[in-house]
């Protein structure tokens, strides 16, 4: 025999379904319907912002890795995904330099300086968004665009405000009682579900995000525990807490589905234990609703996920898996 036999540790086969690159690509694919819809809804401007954000992300990743003397891994798709998600979290009317700064911050500071893929402790896209919110609050909260063909029924002239803005400060836009009533109206809920409303680039269509998210759960990339924990606790609080919006209004408005399916479930920044993932999801749901009802911002998805990201190491520490054959209380001896 001329050629030597190859030796390696078992197992000698690997699951075919996905590796990291494929997983990233599948998440991006799941978001593409939303991207197409947003381009239709807000015009070509939305697509340009997304592209700027993605290109900046990839370039920053390559440059930082080069400077740190690491292998350049832009092909794994994680930088593309970060850029995409960041853009999805921006209002469609923002100036074009804003996504550049946001992406650069996300990749350089939130990701690469902490060690790159697998080592960042908070979701880079959300960190980028939080950075922009803190630095240019007016650009981040005022640059809403009116969706094409989409208005909240009967609330003329204020179509560019996001539904959650209307809910938070109805008196700014007219008679609060009428506005609240219209917000909870069935036609409004329908618009919200389909996505013909104002909002961030990628958050408006609950329907498309739901389809993409369920697809990712089915193929096993997204963990159902986080999603169910998140939405479950959110729904419960929406029913209990004193809020002017109905349950369906809360469920379909804002970035809830984008956050619950695509941001909270980020592998790196969510807990690894099964119990931990439940706690993480439930925590996100509670914080989101608390911010919506009593917080200063109309929307609480991104901050609640960021907060829970910070708790992730603690949750992992406190919720170790139960080892097979472990006796519950050894103290009895």
């Amino acid at each position, binding site marked *: 025999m001329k050629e030597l036999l*190859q030796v390696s540790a078992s197992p*000698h*086969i690997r*699951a075919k379904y996905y*590796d990291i690159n494929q997983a990233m690509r599948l998440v991006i694919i799941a978001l593409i319907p939303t991207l197409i819809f947003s381009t239709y809804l807000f015009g070509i401007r939305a697509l340009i912002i997304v592209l700027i954000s993605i290109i900046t992300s990839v370039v920053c990743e390559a440059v930082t890795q080069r400077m740190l003397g690491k292998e350049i891994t832009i092909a794994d798709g994680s930088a593309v995904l970060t850029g995409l998600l960041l853009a999805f979290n921006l209002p469609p009317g923002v100036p074009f330099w804003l996504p550049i700064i946001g992406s650069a911050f996300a990749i350089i500071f939130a990701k690469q300086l902490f060690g790159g893929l697998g080592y960042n402790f908070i979701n880079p896209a959300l960190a980028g968004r939080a950075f922009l919110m803190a630095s240019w609050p007016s650009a981040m909260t005022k640059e809403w665009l009116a969706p094409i063909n989409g208005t909240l029924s009967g609330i003329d002239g204020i179509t560019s405000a996001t539904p959650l803005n209307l809910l938070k400060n109805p008196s700014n836009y007219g008679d609060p009682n009428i506005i609240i009533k219209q917000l909870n109206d069935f036609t409004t809920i329908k618009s919200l579900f389909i996505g013909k409303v104002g909002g961030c680039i990628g958050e408006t269509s609950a329907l498309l995000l739901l389809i993409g998210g369920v697809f990712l759960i089915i193929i096993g990339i997204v963990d159902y525990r986080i999603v169910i924990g998140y939405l479950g606790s959110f729904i419960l609080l929406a029913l209990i807490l004193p809020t002017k919006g109905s349950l369906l209004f809360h469920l379909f408005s804002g970035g809830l589905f984008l956050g619950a399916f695509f941001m909270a479930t980020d592998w790196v920044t969510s807990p690894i*234990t099964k119990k931990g993932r439940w706690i993480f999801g439930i925590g996100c749901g509670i914080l989101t609703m608390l911010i919506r009802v009593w917080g200063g911002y109309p929307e609480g998805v991104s901050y609640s996920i960021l907060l829970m990201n910070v708790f992730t190491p603690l949750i992992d520490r406190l919720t170790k898996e139960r080892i097979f054959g472990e006796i519950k209380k050894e103290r009895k001896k």
Partner: protein
Amino acid sequence: MAKGFSGGVHPPEEKHTEKTSIEAMPLPKRVYIPFSQHTGKPARPLVEKGAEVKVGTKIGEADGFISSPVHSSISGKVVDIKRHPHPVVGESLCCIIESDNQDEWEQGVKVKQNYESLTREELLQIIKDAGIVGLGGAAFPTYVKLSPPKEKKIDTLIINGCECEPMLTADHRLILEYPMGIIEGARIFQRILDAPRLIFAVEDNKLDAAQILKKEGVEVVILKTKYPQGAEKQLIKAVLNREVPRGGLPMDVGCVVQNVGTAYAAFQAAKYRKPLIDRVVTVTGDGVKEPKNLLVRIGTRAIDVINHCGGYTNPPKKIIFGGPMMGIAQFSEEVPVIKGTSGIIVWTSSPTFQEGPCVRCASCIDVCPMGLMPTEIYKFVQNRNFQEAEKFGALDCIECGCCAFSCPAKIPLVHYIKFGKAEIRRLKQK
């Protein structure tokens, strides 16, 4: 009534030889019989260079409680006793016997015996003398498993016919072709253990095997096809819903598990006084011209077995002894088949996997049948923090490979954990 355990994976089964009948391989010209084929101390050599041996002649004596005797598998002459490649430990002392082509059996062997009237102690002694070890792969001496301490009452004996490893079909064929022998062997175990209940466990991808056993009137439990269903602790959990405590043995929950092949070997030992000198091996993979289920004499080299199966299709890249999930990749085609060899897999290609960074996806945690956190243990091992690795249950790992199988970053988790286990044990001995 399919039952299960938590975790596990579904690797492609690829059991291409399940319809191929067991075929006895012609005698090899030479056999290389290692003195160490079992868990425990190697056997003490009894023969010297030049000695004449027959089939079944004891050539190595059990050395200590956890050990097992070794027998000649062909008749002929001992040409050498020296170190030779070994499928599990790399290299070990082997008895090399050249065949005289007579296939002459040791006196008293192959003569039908009436074993029904024997006492438990006598049966146990026969199994011990026949050198029978667990044929599922771990090769733990069977008589040790059959002699639990008095205070451990065994209420259930489970005969393991799961064969959850992909590609292997040796146990499956054995059940289909020799069900009576297996059942008789199981009853011998049952008598020795004085266990009231006897259960045969089969996965639901072998319903024909389950059917045959059922027809003979024994209790059969059909389990979901899921890897590693045949792992002892997972099997007990699935069949009886009992959990073997950490660091404990099946007998701590009143159970003993034996492989179907072991039961058949025990039957042959009791009925014909035949020591363990052959076993069924599945020879498969894209590198073998004619995949087969072969009855192979212990000590036959891999290359002889492969040549009997028509030889290689293309130059081999990887030869595995065992299944693709837990088997051991061999560095030489000279390694002999030993008592624990359930399969020989030959591949003409073997992808190498680029190890990426852990992205904390937690699939290893979701699939671990032992409830461990492989990614955490791997990180501790990488940082040489063996104390923490042990706290996270490194020693509970059964090395089934589910974690590494499903890791999207292709991290060889089992490799790291095995290393960690070895280091933990080494540090403890100090």
